[in-house]
């Protein structure tokens, strides 16, 4: 097929928008930790932007989107971008240069790894983090991306719907975060004293704003063409984000006071939940999906904090794991072929099967991501150790891991 310049422009812009989300994560997470770990938290996202961009070009894209091998993994034909050129791919995004599709997908791989870092901040050794991330991209992300999005992937063939990454990105990140936090153990002083106060809430809000902005590329860009579907996904995205932000604000208000940190968190979980659904549901469904996301994630977070013994520090599981699960299931409820002929009808349009498929997709990714991450984490732990030592943790990872401090000055 030949290149459509408008689709290409839209996909390139979307790729740039999704790229900006990773610095968005750096700010969003960075603002929530203690100041002594601010740079270390940002560094995790920034290093991933470098590392995964590179690995993706070298082999990640090929494993995920290379010619299918038994529904499980992509072949090595695209290693080092071999045959990935200015002409369109014959199977993916056939109206834009293959390179543009590759770049767009690269940004998804990057941010997924960056999301996981929320579980391990303030105590993970940087060297172990780099090794773990390389393994995780290769052994967890690439296969799951192939199953769901790869032409011939087994979950795709079964009809599991995931418009922009509810399973591949969010459940994947959330389940892995839980496993890794569990292996790592809690931060020193966790629960003994007052919680670790966020060092910079305006920074969190700026991060959330960049995430919201970039998510238009994430979701509406996933239409892979410019037109009605992209517009529909765009509106669904904004509506879900807004509704969830407002709902979370109300939940915190009921509890005590309307919280800005809560509203920012709500926006993010609304964006998470609409991700798998954005191009399959009518945009106004962003409202129930947003409300559901805020409520589900709010109580999941409470549960994690009060009942589960794990210091999953920035609640990747509660936000992305639960938000992504709700979104994947909501796709099975609200999807409509009137919105996207390439999709399916959901339960409310009489197709209960689709909900079953979605449940299958959710369960598979949950189990695989959790288990595989646990094994990978354990291997890294045994071989090189996952955690910094007690002194390094007390001093803070900025100085102990990176030899830097966030705010320099004459004195402090």
């Amino acid at each position, binding site marked *: 097929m030949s290149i459509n310049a408008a689709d290409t422009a839209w996909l390139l812009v979307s790729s740039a928008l999704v790229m900006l989300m990773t610095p968005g994560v750096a700010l969003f997470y960075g603002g929530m930790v203690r100041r002594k770990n601010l740079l270390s938290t940002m560094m995790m996202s920034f290093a991933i932007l470098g590392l995964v961009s590179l690995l993706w070009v070298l082999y990640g894209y090929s494993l995920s989107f290379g010619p299918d091998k038994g529904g499980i993994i992509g072949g090595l034909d695209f290693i080092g971008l071999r045959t990935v050129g200015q002409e369109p791919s014959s199977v993916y995004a056939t109206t834009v240069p293959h390179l543009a599709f590759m770049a767009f997908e690269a940004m998804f791989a990057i941010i997924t790894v960056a999301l996981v870092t929320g579980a391990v901040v303030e105590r993970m050794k940087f060297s172990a983090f780099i090794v773990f991330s390389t393994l995780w991209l290769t052994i967890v992300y690439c296969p799951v991306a192939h199953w769901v999005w790869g032409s011939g992937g087994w979950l795709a063939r079964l009809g599991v719907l995931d418009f922009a990454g509810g399973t591949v990105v969010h459940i994947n990140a959330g389940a892995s975060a839980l496993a890794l936090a569990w292996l790592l153990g809690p931060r020193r002083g966790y629960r003994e004293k007052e919680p670790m*106060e966020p060092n910079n809430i305006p920074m969190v809000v700026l991060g959330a704003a960049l995430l919201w902005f970039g998510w238009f590329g994430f979701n509406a860009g996933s239409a892979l063409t410019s037109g009605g579907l992209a517009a529909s996904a765009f509106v669904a995205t904004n509506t879900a984000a807004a509704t969830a932000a407002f709902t979370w604000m109300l939940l*915190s208000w009921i509890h005590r006071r309307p919280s800005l940190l809560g509203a920012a968190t709500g926006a993010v979980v609304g964006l998470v939940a609409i991700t798998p659904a954005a191009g399959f549901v009518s945009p106004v469904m962003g409202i129930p999906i947003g409300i559901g996301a805020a409520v589900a994630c709010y109580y999941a*977070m409470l549960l994690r904090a009060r009942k589960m013994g794990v210091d999953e520090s920035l609640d990747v599981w509660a936000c992305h794991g639960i938000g992504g699960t709700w979104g994947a299931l909501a796709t099975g409820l609200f999807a409509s072929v009137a919105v996207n002929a390439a999709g399916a009808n959901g339960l409310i349009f009489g197709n209960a099967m689709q909900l079953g498929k979605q449940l299958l997709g959710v369960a598979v990714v949950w189990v695989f991501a959790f288990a595989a991450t646990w094994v990978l984490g354990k291997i890294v732990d045994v071989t090189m150790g996952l955690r910094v030592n007690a002194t390094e943790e007390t001093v803070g990872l900025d100085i102990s891991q990176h030899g830097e401090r966030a705010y320099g000055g004459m004195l402090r």
Partner: protein
Amino acid sequence: MKKIEAIIREEKLDAVRAALQNSGYYGITVSEVSGHGREGGLILQWRVGEYKVDFLPKLKVELVVLDEDVARTLNAITSAARTGEMGDGKIFVLPVENAVRVRTGEEGDNAI
């Protein structure tokens, strides 16, 4: 000479400064400190749930005064800084043996 160290509420700085100026002292040094006392801490919110912060922001006002001005100064600060609620702060008086004005090298009472 005595050094007066007053721990006060942040919002009382202007009143205290005005009161001190009325009693003839415009030279003061102020710093931001964190205090814990009888006053309860601050309840803040996290994404879900809440937490207590034990230390509250206070200001420390330091000034050195002549012996004969101590009582007057204490009164001035006390009445300017009071709200009657817990957390109004404390004032301490410490002996000072000497003072030097860096600019001129003057020592003792002249340096104040």
